[in-house]
């Protein structure tokens, strides 16, 4: 390490934390699916998480003023690295989030570094917070999906209604919505990607950008509801959409929607910034 080694130490701790947090789920995915199927499934890591981590690391590495590692960096690093020793993915995320919180308190960060730290905080705390919310509020979350699915399906068929997370046709159950199919699970990843992409390019959130975030949220929920309604419509459609090609098509459609709305929001802000004569790198802290 040479003078200016500070952000390299930060990155080393962040990469170790992310590896520790992702390692157990990756191993579980390989044990569950086998190596090649797991590899095809990105080893169970959502691309939004990977993209957010890479953006965060890239931004934190962009330093203008060379700074040396401080004594406080060493002590906090020691605390966090000891925390990473605990064999728990959730605790690794929490310790990584705490470390990101420490970085956020540092003076002399560039605007890019601040953006990277903000993305890291959101990425780190997303998993434990979502895990908690989905556990505690599982029933209302799934009931919300079932109610919207029944509402959509009832436009085409009679006698459709929701009972908890069951989509019913009269007295018969058409579909049981389980956690992995919930809109909230997909939404948290979509909004993470949206935030990471926006924050990495522009530091101030304009109304258009927030509108693109709302667009991401609404489109993800709506697309998921269409998918669930199609699954509830017949056994044949369920087989196609829940597995194989249909699953991939809907995943690609979701990705396309998220990227499109995010791109629209960012492009609008950058165009406006150009129009103001500030240039694309003009940022506010």
């Amino acid at each position: 390490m040479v003078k200016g080694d500070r952000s390299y130490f930060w990155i080393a701790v962040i990469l170790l934390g992310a590896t520790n947090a992702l390692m157990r789920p990756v191993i579980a995915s390989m044990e569950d699916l086998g190596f090649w199927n797991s590899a095809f499934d990105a080893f169970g890591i959502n691309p939004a998480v990977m993209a957010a981590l890479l953006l965060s690391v890239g931004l934190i590495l962009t330093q203008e003023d060379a700074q040396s590692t401080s004594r406080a960096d060493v002590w906090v690093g020691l605390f966090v690295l000891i925390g990473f020793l605990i064999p728990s993915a959730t605790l690794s995320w929490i310790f990584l989030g705490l470390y990101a919180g420490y970085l956020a308190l540092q003076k002399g960060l560039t605007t890019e570094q601040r953006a990277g730290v903000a993305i890291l905080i959101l990425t780190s705390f997303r998993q434990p917070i979502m895990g908690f919310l989905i556990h505690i509020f599982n029933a209302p979350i799934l009931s919300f999906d079932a109610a919207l699915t029944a509402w959509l399906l009832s436009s085409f068929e009679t006698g459709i209604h929701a009972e908890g997370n069951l989509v019913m046709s009269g007295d018969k159950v058409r579909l049981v919505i389980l956690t992995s199919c919930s809109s909230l699970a997909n939404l948290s990843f979509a909004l993470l990607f949206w935030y990471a992409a926006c924050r990495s390019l522009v530091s101030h959130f304009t109304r258009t950008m927030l509108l693109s975030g709302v667009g991401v949220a609404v489109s993800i929920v709506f697309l998921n509801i269409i998918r669930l309604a199609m699954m509830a419509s017949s056994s044949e459609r369920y087989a196609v959409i829940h597995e194989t090609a249909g699953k991939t098509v809907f995943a690609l459609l979701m990705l396309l929607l998220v990227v499109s709305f995010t791109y629209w929001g960012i492009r609008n802000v950058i165009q406006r910034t150009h129009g103001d004569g500030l240039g694309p790198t003009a940022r506010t802290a």
Partner: protein
Amino acid sequence: MSSNARMAMVLVLLLGPLSLLMKLWGPNQYGPVPTQVQIPAALTDFLSQYNLTFFSNLHTINAQAYQMALYHDASEDATCLAMIYVMPMPINAEAEFILARPVGVASVDFFYVHRGNVTNRYPSTSHWYAGVINRVRLLAGLSPVSNIVYGIASTSPCVTPRDFDWSQLSF
């Protein structure tokens, strides 16, 4: 190179690989998935006090995700067809409403038993809390306590399993 930078490098080189090894060797903190959960013998014994004997395992309406065990009153002097469905729920409340219609037949009553306590709704908070405690126990090298919620449904009005003394069950 400053002394702080040297210390930082030593910390990363020492604790980094060690933390990754701990993840490889540490205890598995993922609980059982629904298809892996078996009805404990103690529960079958408990139900036998009320003349309910194991009849068969059933897959629920969502195919392989959850299983139910059906208990019935097979005694000769039984006055009506008592049917009690027991569904182990190890994850969260996602299977909560399946109990309302175990096999397409509407339940007369359904409720949840978690560590001897009876609730009308899935006990999300106590289940989550017990899960956290189990993680700490695992990290401390202690064996985890059972953290399965049992969904109980009755499709026969002549048997009221809610009145059983579920507090006898500690799992």
